[in-house]
Each structure stands twice: as C-alpha cells, then as structure tokens.
C-alpha cells in the first residue's frame, strides 16, 4: 500500500514539476538545510549551565513543529489526497497510514530529518546510552510532526468553509506565525541576559518539555541520567500520541458528514449608471469586493496580514515596550502583498471571461482598487490609532510617509506578480469544500514579502536625509514622496501587468487549464487543453506553417544558477538590512551597539558611508535576484 502510494506520488511529481517549480523546491530545500544545519550546530555550543542546551534545543524543535503546522496551510494541497481513493474499498486507518507513508517521502521531511539529527549529536554529549535512545526518539518525533501537520490541515479545512471559520483560521494562522517568529525576539534577551549561565526559569523548562515535540529531548536527557522509567515513558508517548493523531486524521478522511455552509448573494443588483463604479474597472472592483467578502479563502487571506500586524505590534507590550505600535498599519500594508500575489491563479480558468470581453486592463485596475479597499482603510486606521496610543509624536512623519508608499507599491506588486508569476491551482469550484487547497504560491509569496518592503525606500531616504541634515521640513517631505511613490508604483506596475495580460492572456489561460505552461512545438508531451489528441502525428510531416509556440520553453534551472540567485537573495538581505539600514539608523539615533554591524566599528561619518554603500549594493543584488527569480518563474510556468 505505502509502496504503491509512494510510487504514485513520485509519478505525479515527475509529471507536474516545471522548471520554475523545481527552482523553488531547490531554493526552499537549501534554505531549509541551512536552518537544519544551524539546529545541529546549536548542540555543539559551549554552554556552562547543563540544562540550558536542552531547553534551547526543545525550543528550536518546537519551532520546527510549528513550521510543519503552518506550512501546509499557506502552501498547496498534498499531492495525494484522500478523495482520489474514495471509491476504493480501503479502511480509513489503512488509507491514512498509506498517505502518511507517502507524505514522509518529501524534501521537507528530509530537511527536518537532518535537523533532527541534532538530538543524536546532543545525546552524544550525554553518553552512549542517550545516543542510542536518540535514534528512535528523533524518528518518532519526525513522524509525529508530519502527523500533526496533517491533522492541523484537516481541522482547518473543515473550519475554513464558513466565513466565520475562515476568519478564525486567519487569526489562528497569524497567531502561529507570530509565535514562530517571536523566537527571534527571544534570542535577543537570551543573548543579553545571563540565561546561558544560569539557565531558564524552572517553569519555562517544565512547560517547554511537556510539549510533544520536546519528548525526544526528555527521553534523551533521562537516558543520560539513567532515569529509565522517564525514558521509557517519553519514548512510549510518541507512538501512542502518533496513533491517536492517526485515528483523528483517518476520521477526517471520509465523506464529510455535514454539508458545507452555503454563502448567498443579494437578490438584486443593477449596474450603476454613473459615478466611479459605472465603467468596466468599476464593475471589476465590485466583483472583486464581493469575492473578498464571499469567498472564505479570501477572508482568510484578508485576516492574516491584519492579525499578524496587530499581533506583532502588540506583543512587545507584554514586556512594556510600545515601540512597535506605530508600525502596525505599515505592517498590514507590507504583509498584505503576500496574500494577494496570485489573484489570477486563485480564480482559475475564469480568465477566459476577461479575455473574451477584452477587459484585461479594466480587470487589473479593478483588482488593484479592490486590494486598496480591503487593506487601505485598515492600514490607515491602525496607523493613526496605534501611533496616538503609543504617544510617540516623533513617529508621525515616518508613519504617514511609509504607509501610502507600501499600500500603493503593494497594489502594483500584487497585480504584476499575479500576471507574471502565475501559479496554477484548482478551479474555485473544485475547492469549494476546502478553501485552503489553493495553488502553492509559497515561493513567489516569500519573494513578494521581501520585495514588498522596498517601496518604503524613497520616503525613508528623504526622512533620513532630513534627520542627517537636521532639516525639519525634509522630515515632512516624506509624506508627498511616499504618496508619489505609492501612486507611481501602483500605476506603473499595474500598467505593465495589464500589458502583459493582453499579450500573454491565452498562454496564461492554457497554464490554468492544464496546470503547465504551453510546451514548445518541437519537444515535450502533448496535451490539448481539454482533451488528449488521439493520435500523435509527427510534427516533421506537418506543413512549414507549424510555427513554434510563442511561449518559451520550461526552463530547468541549473544548479549553478540556483546558487547564484540564492547568493543574490542572501547577500542582498545581509547588505541591505544588517549591514546597511540597521547601522545607518543606529548611527543616526546615536546607539552604541557594535555587534556584527561592520559600519559601527568605523567613525560615524565613515560608518554612514559604509552603511549607505551596503544599502546600494544590497538593492543591486536584490534587483538581480528579483529579475532572475521572476524570469524563471515566468519561463517555468
């Protein structure tokens, strides 16, 4: 059973992996391996307090478990799904076990397995018995996190079909994101406190070790102490909990017991005769706003950035720091780009409707306006309200400059990304019962997240200059610069998106119909959009008129190219932020932190020069990386 499913999964992957998707898989795998390597290296750290390393390791493993729970909610549906086997006479637990086995054959599992080698390297410090225990413990936790991920996904799929459930899903998803990212917030206090010598509080250690992802650590440490009953209990707990999760998951695999919540529309509706909503773009705007309101998947997408921004801004209040409050609105505008970067992919083959009505330009503009209508008011209100609450009057010039730039830039980026990095997924009606089963646009979303911050650059540059030269009016000049940047980016990127849609609309529709970009005429497997040609004919016997298809070939990225692009992404990130913007800001506010910020080791004027040079070089690398990534995404899809 498992063997058959694994072979089937590999066959599906082989037939559906394009160059672009392969590039994202390699990129994700390399990034994951870096994290895995860091996890293993952690166990070699020289820590004086004995319990601390175990605490740290347990915390990092919790991070891995949370990533497993979040990942599938954000990304695509599993390759093999229970519906595919609905008509086979298979008991559900057996099907669940089979799907679990097939699910273990994945890059993500391999990367996590590497990370979980850290338990063995950690155990090796505690003695040979602990090292022996570590092997089954690590394997057990690995299976457990995969199961946790499946059960979370199944539960969210059930919840997310109603609008309230979709909003709750968005909130929980944002919550999981905040918890996993706030690990970074913990690292700073850990490094600057003496926790590494005195250890964490007993309460923290106890709670942390009660979490199932920590049971491997518990078993290993108990084995190191020779405490065999605890070792046995922790080791036995893993399969018991795993079996329970498997049963829960198996129960969700059958035919749904309750019918879906039907969302209804209004009974009447006429076209407005005049006003801004009268034209084609107005019609698309009205259609999009209704879709944002009626489609549970869109509701989840709308809630996540807002909840994430609020949570991130409010979290530091728990230790009395209102420092992030003014940036909540900007964070909404920033994060929103990731949730709307595949609008055409999410709408599936409905693109034919746009093409036959010749309304490509209106479609792009209407979608941009709807995006602004969904996120704009929230971003503005949160910015105003929370800045007032924070009491930071100095923050106003920064906030009013950054928010319009990010909103407008976002409206441009989502339009351009939706057209140029189209990720095909199932048609909306095929996932009406499972709104989370969308296209896997994780890679482009991740790129958009980092690109989405760039529109804030011009207004920030003006304000920073104002600070440098001590010119008060320059501080406020950030506002018009921010608005101008936003308007210009929204208009320009939208214009490019519309032009591209007009030019390549039929190719995009083909991609949506078949799940793959149109192949070139001379090579590859043929498939007509809605049917398989019955008898393949030799293309050589066709007339000379068989012109090559206008679409480029699916480009498989070479290893060297992937490394180069990845290097640009990482280098761009390092130069722009920690070696660029951060030291510049630290110098400007007069902070005396050197850490690994090279510019802080120079006298201030030279430090500034080095910081600005870092930003320039970083942006240049980012530009190279963006161009290469998007080009490959386009070619590959």
């Amino acid at each position: 059973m498992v063997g058959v499913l694994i072979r089937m999964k590999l066959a599906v992957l082989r037939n559906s992996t394009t160059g672009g998707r392969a590039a994202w898989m390699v990129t994700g795998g390399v990034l994951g391996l870096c994290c895995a390597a860091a996890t293993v290296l952690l166990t070699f750290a020289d820590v004086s307090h004995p319990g601390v390393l175990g605490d740290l390791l347990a915390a990092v493993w919790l991070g891995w478990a949370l990533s497993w729970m979040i990942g599938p909610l954000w990304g695509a549906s599993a390759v093999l799904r229970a519906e595919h086997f609905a008509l086979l006479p298979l008991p559900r637990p057996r099907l669940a076990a089979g799907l679990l086995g097939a699910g273990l054959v994945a890059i993500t599992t391999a990367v996590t397995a590497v990370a979980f080698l850290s338990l063995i390297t950690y155990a090796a410090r505690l003695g040979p018995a602990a090292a022996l225990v570590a092997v089954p413990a690590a394997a057990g936790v690995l299976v457990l996190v995969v199961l946790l991920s499946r059960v979370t996904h199944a539960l969210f799929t059930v919840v997310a079909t109603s609008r309230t459930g979709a909003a709750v899903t968005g909130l929980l998803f944002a919550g999981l994101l905040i918890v996993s990212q706030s690990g970074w917030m913990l690292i700073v206090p850990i490094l600057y406190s003496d926790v590494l010598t005195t250890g964490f509080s007993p309460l923290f250690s106890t709670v942390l070790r009660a979490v199932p992802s920590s049971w491997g650590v518990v078993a290993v440490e108990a084995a190191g102490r020779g405490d065999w009953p605890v070792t046995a209990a922790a080791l036995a707990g893993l399969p018991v909990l795993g079996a329970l999760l498997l049963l829960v998951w198996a129960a969700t695999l059958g035919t749904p017991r309750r019918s879906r919540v039907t969302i209804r529309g209004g009974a009447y509706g006429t076209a407005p005769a005049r006003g801004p909503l009268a034209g084609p773009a107005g019609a698309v705007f009205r259609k999009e706003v209704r879709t944002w309101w009626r489609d549970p998947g869109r509701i989840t997408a709308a809630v996540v950035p807002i909840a994430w921004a609020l949570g991130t801004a409010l979290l530091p209040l728990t230790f009395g720091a209102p420092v992030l409050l003014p940036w909540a609105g900007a964070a909404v505008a920033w994060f929103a780009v990731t949730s709307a970067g595949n609008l055409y992919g999410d709408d599936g083959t409905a693109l034919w409707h746009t093409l036959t009505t010749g309304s490509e330009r209106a479609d792009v503009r209407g979608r941009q306006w709807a995006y602004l209508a969904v996120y704009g008011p929230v971003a503005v209100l949160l910015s105003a309200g929370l800045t007032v609450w924070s009491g930071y009057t100095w923050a106003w010039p920064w906030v009013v400059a950054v928010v319009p730039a990010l909103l407008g830039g976002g409206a441009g980026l989502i339009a351009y990304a939706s057209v140029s990095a189209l990720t095909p997924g199932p048609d909306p009606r095929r996932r009406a019962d499972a709104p989370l089963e969308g296209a896997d646009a994780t890679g482009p979303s991740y790129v958009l997240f980092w690109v989405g911050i760039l529109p804030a650059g011009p207004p920030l540059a003006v304000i920073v200059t104002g600070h440098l030269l001590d010119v008060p009016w320059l501080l406020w000049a950030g506002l018009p610069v921010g608005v101008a940047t936003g308007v210009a980016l929204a208009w320009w990127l939208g214009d490019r998106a519309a032009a591209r849609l007009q030019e390549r609309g039929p190719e995009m529709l083909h991609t949506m119909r078949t799940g793959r970009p149109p192949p070139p005429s001379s090579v590859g497997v043929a498939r007509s959009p809605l049917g398989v040609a019955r008898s393949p004919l030799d293309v050589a016997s066709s007339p000379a008129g068989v012109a090559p298809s206008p679409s480029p070939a699916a480009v498989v990225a070479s290893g060297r190219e992937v490394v180069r692009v990845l290097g640009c992404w990482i280098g761009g990130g390092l130069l722009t932020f920690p070696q660029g913007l951060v030291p510049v800001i630290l110098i400007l506010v007069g902070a005396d932190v050197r850490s690994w910020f090279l510019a802080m080791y120079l006298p201030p004027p030279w430090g500034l020069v080095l910081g600005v040079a870092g930003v320039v070089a970083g942006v240049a690398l980012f530009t190279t990386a963006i161009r290469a990534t998007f080009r490959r995404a386009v070619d590959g899809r």
Partner: protein
Amino acid sequence: MGSDPALRLTGLVKAFGSTVAVDRVDLTVPAGSFFGLVGPNGAGKTTALSMAAGLLRPGAGRCEVSGVDVWADPVRAKTLIGVLPDGLALPERLTGRELLTFTGQLRRIPPDVLTERVQELLTVMGLTGAETTLVVDYSTGMRKKIGLATALLHGPRLLILDEPFEAVDPVSAAALKAILVRFVASGGSVVLSSHVMALVEQLCDTVAIMDRGRVVAAGPLADVRGDETLERAFVELVGAADPVPDGLSWLAS
C-alpha cells in the same frame, strides 16, 4: 462584410509538443447557418474552437469572424462573438444576475438596456428561482445556462459553443435549443461542437467531421450524411474499431 462567412478558419494549426492537435484545418461557416462540429474525443474540436474564440493562440493559420481577423483585431472580433467554453470557471462568487450585470458592464452595455436584458435572460433560462445562489453552487446544467446567457448578452453575430448540451437535463435542453433556433432564425450563426450525433442532426444544417486534428468531411448535412444517418457516416469516416472488442472476458464470470 455582408458577404463574409460568419467564421472562416484557414490553414489552422496547433501543436502541443510533438502532438499536432489541429492540423491544417480549413473550415467555412456560412452566415446564418447552424453549424455542427463533430468528432471523437481528442479530435481537436475544442482546440479549434478555442483558437476561433481568441482563447488559444494558433501555431499557424487565420481565424476570421465576419471578415475580422480574431488575432489581428481582437477587440472588434470579440464584439461579434459570444463564447460558451466547456468546463471553464466563471467569476464564481457572484449570483447569476450579478454575473450578467458584470459582464454587461465589461462590454459597456448602457445600464438601462442591461437591466432589461439581464432580467429577460434570467427568465428565459429559468434561473430566476436561484436569485441568491452564487455561481460556485450552481449545478452543471445551471452553469451551462448562465454561460449561454453571458454569451448572448451583448447580441453577438456568432455563437461559439463547446458541448453546450452536456449535462443539461432534457427540459432545459429543449429550452436552450429553442433559444438557439430563434437566434439563427433572426440572422445569427451558431457553431457548436458535440459528439451526440442525433442532436447535431436535429439542430444543424451544416456539419463538419473532425478526426485526429483534420477535417475529414464538411458541408450541408444532407451532403455529409448521404442516404445514411449521420452516425453511420461518422463511423465510416472516422474508421470504427470492432464495435465489440475482444477481451474483458472476466467481467461476466
């Protein structure tokens, strides 16, 4: 433009990789005709119609609607055609009325005319009973009907319909047929693809048979079928395999 055929495909070619789905197809649909395109699964009907409708870029050849090149002057051509593709998504989170109103706005139909047409189409299609139902919750038959309504909304000269009667119940099918017959009687032209021979024989005055990407016969229905039924003519042209192939002996045991 008056003497131009409703649709003319000239030397149309589309290859997907090494498979040629549509191979040098020449086809003329006379103005005012009810044209049936038949062929077995995978014959290239959908591919040919997608290219004619401006939804799939041809590898070579021309598609003209009333003399207007679909790929050279798409804006003008698209005002002349109404399209019903098979199995494609629609803007799913709208009600039927909202979808038609939305489509009419995209086609810049004046609001008062639009309101009237939408009401009439919903009534004729029998969709007024599902006013608050979103398209995503429509049955397959309802989707066909709302799709046909969006195709008719702007009063096109040519309707391109891909399998319009598939999954439509007999009562709705009769209503759809009546609408199409009336459309042709009032001077419009219809091209539909189907593999239900009886239906094509009943509705169409002109037919073409496609097989393996080629047009193997085309012309007035009477000429193509001769003294036989269309089905027999089709089977002869396409080359029927043994009607009851060997094998599957285990099924009876």
